[in-house]
């Protein structure tokens, strides 16, 4: 016996990463494109990720004018399964594929550049994952690496993109290790190399790494950059330039909401699961513990 599911569902996606938490609240109406009602991202810093997620979820509910009881499904991804109040958990590659496709329906792959890991996911037009590749136990070229560099250069992470675009003579960055590269950067500063040229050199070396990852996952066509670095115009420019130089048949895109891709995908999968379970006669009771 099938249970009645309202035509319109309210779901939440919570993506707990290693450096920030992302929350997306969505309204999913059958037969229509789902709507993002509230989406926010917050850095964890030295705090407890569970508390940061709790606080951010509350903020989003408030922005949307919802209560916890309005939400039919709280879907987590990343390390979100540590949250007691989640309904279900989804793997990062499926949520990023789904979220990526939602943001850019033409995308057939995503590259998620996070604080510690980068992953390339190739999918079809229905967000089915066809293949993926992930960086291993090494932070070379990660978001955290770039953040460390910022600290040494005395600039903020938001300034890095515009500065990179000002570069006229990028300085090649040879060191692969995220930590030993810092020494290289300090040496560059003392040799009088400008911040834009240092940053661009680093962007180029990072781009090379991401393109190899995309190539090994056999990405083609439109690739959406997601994760924290999708806002960095410098890395976007240098990724596309490197791809063109290597004649890789991909077109890189970003979206203002790229950073929310995992959370968006989770919320969408949550709505999908509510409907799927209803056809099997299962209704979900939401865990609303605070």
């Amino acid at each position, binding site marked *: 016996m099938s249970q009645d599911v309202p035509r319109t569902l309210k779901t939440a996606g919570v993506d707990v990463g*290693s450096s920030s938490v992302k929350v997306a609240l969505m309204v999913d109406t059958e037969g229509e494109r789902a709507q993002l009602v509230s989406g926010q991202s917050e850095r964890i810093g*030295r*705090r*407890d*990720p569970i508390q940061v997620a709790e606080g951010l979820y509350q903020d989003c509910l408030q922005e949307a004018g919802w209560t916890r009881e309005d939400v039919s499904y709280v879907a987590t991804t990343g390390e979100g399964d540590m949250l007691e109040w989640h309904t279900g958990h989804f793997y990062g590659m499926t949520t990023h594929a789904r979220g990526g496709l939602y943001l850019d329906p033409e995308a057939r792959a995503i590259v998620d550049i996070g*604080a*510690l890991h980068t992953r390339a996911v190739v999918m079809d037009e229905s967000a089915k994952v066809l293949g993926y590749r992930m960086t291993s*136990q*090494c*932070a070379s070229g*990660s978001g*955290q*690496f770039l953040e*460390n560099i910022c600290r040494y250069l005395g600039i903020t992470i938001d300034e890095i993109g515009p500065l990179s675009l000002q570069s006229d003579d990028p300085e090649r960055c040879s060191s*692969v*290790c*995220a*930590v*030993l590269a810092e*020494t290289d950067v300090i*040496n560059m500063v*003392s*040799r009088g190399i400008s911040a834009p040229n240092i940053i661009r050199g680093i962007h180029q070396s990072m781009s090379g790494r991401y393109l190899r990852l995309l190539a090994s996952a056999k990405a083609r066509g439109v690739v959406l950059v997601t994760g924290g670095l999708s806002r960095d115009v410098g890395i976007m420019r240098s990724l596309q330039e490197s791809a063109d130089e290597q004649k890789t048949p991909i077109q890189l895109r970003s979206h203002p909401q790229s950073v929310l891709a995992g959370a968006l995908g989770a919320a969408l999968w949550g709505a999908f699961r509510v409907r799927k379970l209803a056809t099997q006669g299962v209704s979900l009771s939401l865990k609303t513990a605070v």
Partner: protein
Amino acid sequence: MKYCVGIDLGSTTTKAVILGEEGRILGRGITNSRSNYKVACDVALSEALVDARFNLVLQGLDQSGLDETEAADALELLSLRFREQQYRSDLAAFTEAVRVLPEMKNAEAEFREAFDEVMSAVVGEASELFAPGASRRSDFFRDLLASRYHPMAEEVVRKGKVGFNRLVALFDKAILRVENLPPDPGRFAPYAKAALAAIPGSDPALVQAVTAAAGTEMEAVGSVGTGYGRATLPFPKEQIRSEILCHGLGAHAMYPRTRTVLDIGGQDTKAIQVDDEGIVTSFQMNDRCAAGCGRYLGYIADEMNLGVQELGPLACQSTRKVRINSTCTVFAGAELRERLSLGENREDILAGLHRAIVLRAMSLLARSGGVDSEFTFTGGVAKNPAAVEALHGLVKDNYGDMKINISPDSIYTGALGAALFARRGLLNQEKSAQEVVQ
């Protein structure tokens, strides 16, 4: 006096060791490395020459019949006053360097006065900084000045309307200029004289010993360079030796029965096997990844807002074993944050991190041929008690009870090896010259 010099240009510090004609160590010098490698070498050498002259003073005092403790005390006081003179002259150079900065020239009177206020406070406490028994974080001018300039600047900022960041920016710019000034080769005599003058009623024996030491001619007859930056040293190619060779030979000179050397430096880690002459038979090196190098601990210290020298003693207080799962330094930093937020004990995590770095070194050791006889541990990490403890445990577990040598002068191992190579080259030259004559 003729001498041979070995210079080890490392990523964090530059070391010089000078040897006399009989192969005895005359003096050692160290400075922080900087962007100008030539200056770093010159400063390390000039420090080693100063050290050599101090040793001459000590010899002079011994000969004058002063007993050992008296002589050591007199030398200690002299050396403190000498350092103070050096510091004051560096402070003057720094002030001068700031004055010519455009930021300073174009600044409003208020800002210039604020800087003057900071500097007069810094200069005012110079004697205090070098009082007997006073503690200093490091003797490098950069660190010395930073440890006084920044707190003074904070104080001045609190009183006035001048921004802290602007004052710090002056420091960052001017310190580079001062550090890259070439050292004054003839500065021993005037500084020693000023130092003597600052010691009221100094012993005539001391005055005589200083005069004799200052008057001794020092002549370099051989030099060899090594270290991370050796390719950029201002030496001809035949006077450059790899760090591996120099560390092997240096460790052999310190501990002749050594057969295995482990060097954990700032940027790389080396496991070296040597024969009974100190000549390298095999080695393994990691200079690609910070995990397992000293920088790993430096990174962790930054993450925890601690000084790198504070980590070891803290880790030694651990009561429970924690296993760190990450290899990569950055990941270990993330794991550290995660574990702290889960409420794990800081000391225990730190002990786990020390074990992790030594474990990486153990795999290098194993690949280079293991440990089957006396073992010498060198490099900056050899000063860290927690790393030493972890190494003792792991060597015992893997190879049984082995003698582990750690010298308080282990930081000079590479430079000593280089100096020995310089001396060896000189002896070979003399030998072949003699053969030609015959």
